[in-house]
């Protein structure tokens, strides 16, 4: 197992940046997700780590060894492709043994290691089959087996679950997580699915438009986003973001009668702004409160999510009008068009500079944001 270091690594295709210079240090045994919308450069970054794509600038260190210009075959990394890339002309067994043959392993050693990894993934009954005869989940298990069998320094996975249907994706997600815990293997995992990233990673690298937006634990990127992009991108729906003006201990948003509280710890950070600020809060930060409440509006739509309902509330009128998403009890009998009022938990409010789009007073951590362990944070 190994550490991975990216030092000012960048990639240009022609005159366009695919990845702007980025730094990233991945600890031994860490599970890191590269997360972002399509075309953000996450896959290019992964391919640069693997050596399938040459870097334009910067250096890549694997276990403190500079591998920037090494061929993929001598980087000692494994790569799991989105569409598995199982060799169709070989049986499952031959597929799994293929990387070991490259190393010139003895036959009995190959047999032993194939048997081990096949046991681990419970695919012993598939060994003689051709990949095309397997289900998507089994193909992915074989691809994982082919990656695991070499005991590489690091695993790189490019949207390995993207081609699976929803139910199977949940199963495979748990399997990959289990494998990671058992093997304690350094893993870089590319996905556009923030649920997947939140569920699996130790740390998430959020990317957009060829740039790293934030690097942090799932809790950090969720509760303490570095900028408006991350606030919008993480969570479904994303953070509610309302433009407003600071008015004493509260932010005035979306017209008269709607305010968001400013926690005492943020006051000095906000004092430097000219008064304009974007206030953000997650749907679960709102508590519906009868007739009181610092904000209110009309219900525009109601989504049933099973364990809870998501209310789309139309807040304010005219220029300041916006839709705010709040969570409510699954039994709550809200109907479209009816008025609703709610309060916002001050600990869950975040602030952003409307011009630079950066978070203000980030790191004034809330209790939730300090809770970094992936084993405790659900999504």
């Amino acid at each position, binding site marked *: 197992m190994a550490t991975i270091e990216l030092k000012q690594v960048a990639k240009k295709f022609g005159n366009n940046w695919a990845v702007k210079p980025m730094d990233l240090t991945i600890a031994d045994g860490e599970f890191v997700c590269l997360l972002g919308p399509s075309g953000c450069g996450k896959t290019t970054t992964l391919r640069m780590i*693997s*050596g*399938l794509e040459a870097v334009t600038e910067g250096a890549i260190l694997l276990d403190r060894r500079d591998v920037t210009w090494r*061929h*993929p*075959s*001598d980087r000692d*990394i*494994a*790569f799991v*492709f989105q*569409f*598995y*890339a*199982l*060799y*169709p*002309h070989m049986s499952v067994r031959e597929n799994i043994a*293929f*990387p070991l043959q*490259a*190393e010139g392993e003895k036959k009995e050693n190959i047999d032993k290691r194939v048997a081990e990894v096949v046991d681990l993934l419970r695919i012993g009954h598939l060994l003689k089959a*051709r*990949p*095309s*005869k397997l289900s*998507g989940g089994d*193909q992915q298990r074989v691809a994982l087996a*082919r990656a695991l069998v*070499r005991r590489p320094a690091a695993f790189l996975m490019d949207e390995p679950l993207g*081609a699976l249907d929803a139910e199977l994706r949940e199963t495979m997600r748990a399997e990959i997580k289990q494998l990671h815990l058992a093997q304690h293997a350094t893993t870089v995992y590319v996905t556009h699915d923030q649920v997947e990233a939140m569920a699996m990673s130790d740390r998430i690298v959020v990317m957009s438009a060829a740039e790293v937006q934030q690097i942090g634990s799932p809790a950090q990127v969720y509760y303490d986003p570095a900028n408006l992009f991350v606030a919008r991108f993480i969570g479904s729906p994303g953070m509610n973001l309302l433009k407003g003006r600071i008015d004493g201990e509260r932010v005035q948003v979306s017209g008269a009668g709607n305010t968001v509280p400013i926690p005492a710890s943020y006051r000095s950070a906000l004092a430097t702004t000219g008064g304009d600020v974007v206030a953000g809060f997650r749907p679960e930060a709102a508590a519906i409160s009868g007739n009181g409440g610092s904000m209110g509006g009309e219900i525009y739509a109601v989504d049933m999510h099973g364990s809870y309902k998501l209310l789309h509330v139309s807040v304010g009128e005219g220029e300041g009008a916006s839709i705010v998403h709040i969570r409510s009890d699954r039994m709550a009998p809200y109907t479209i068009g009816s008025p609703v009022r709610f309060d916002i938990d001050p600990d869950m409010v975040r602030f952003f500079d409307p011009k630079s789009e950066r978070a203000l007073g980030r790191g004034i951590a809330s209790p939730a944001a300090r809770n970094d362990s992936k084993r405790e944070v659900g999504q």
Partner: protein
Amino acid sequence: MSATGLATAHSVVAPSSRSRKIAATLVILYAVISMVPLAWIFMTSFKTPPDSISYPPKIVFQPSLEGYCNLFTTRSRQTPEYIASLPPPAGVCDEVVRQRNMVIAGPSNYVPRFLNSLIIAFGSTFCAVALGTLAAYAFSRFKVPLADDLMFFILSTRFMPPIAVAIPIYLMYRELGLSDTKLGMIVLYTAVNVSLAVWLLKGFIDEIPREYEEAAMIDGYTRLQAFWKVVLPQATTGIAATAIFCLIFAWNEYAFALMLTSDTARTAPPSIATMLGRGGIEWSAIAAGSLGFLIPVVIVAFALRNYLLRGVTFGAIRQ
């Protein structure tokens, strides 16, 4: 089916049984028409020379091996007294030939020329497909400068019939000492076929996803090893199809062979043609020679039929 049309469940998009019958009839008719010349050659090869030129053509006749005997031997005419003085005939051909007042003087040059054809056709096919596969892979996977122009240039070598450059090639070959050599013919047919091979194979290799090679390189192989172990096995369909096209061209080529070869490298097609006009046209011998000439291409096409018919397999990559 009843008048209401409700009698049987049937697909409304699949071809109806009537249209399928019409299609089957047309295919069978076409097959029969295509087979007639072959049947004609087959029958003629077993006719005696008088039968082979009789009119109307005989459908029922006494089969004879005379055509085959004439194909494989050279003969000389002798007086009946001389033939009568000979020991009893040693074989079937001896007997057949003596009935025409002739004796076998030696083997004909059909077999060596047939071998020339085999060496030149298979040699040039191998070279064209090998070069074509490597070139197609390079065009498919690498950023080749001016790739489109180069591909067009390669195609442009087929814009005119190859024989249009016969005279320059003849002069070049004379200077280079390649006239009437097997190597010269292999080089020539390779040059003609390689453009076809590059274009056909590029299409096939483009269809093979790059992930396979990338996976192989990650798995510890060099690009060349990845090409050999992962790309080639998946390109077999395209390679087989390309090989057959190249082989058919090289095997049947007549004009260059007639012009550039005389004895050591002469191939079968001009050789069979020159059986005309040596003491009358030996139709049955020509038919026998043509029939033998068909065999290698039929064998190769038959051997590769699985590759030709098997759909390209993209099993492990969902498209």
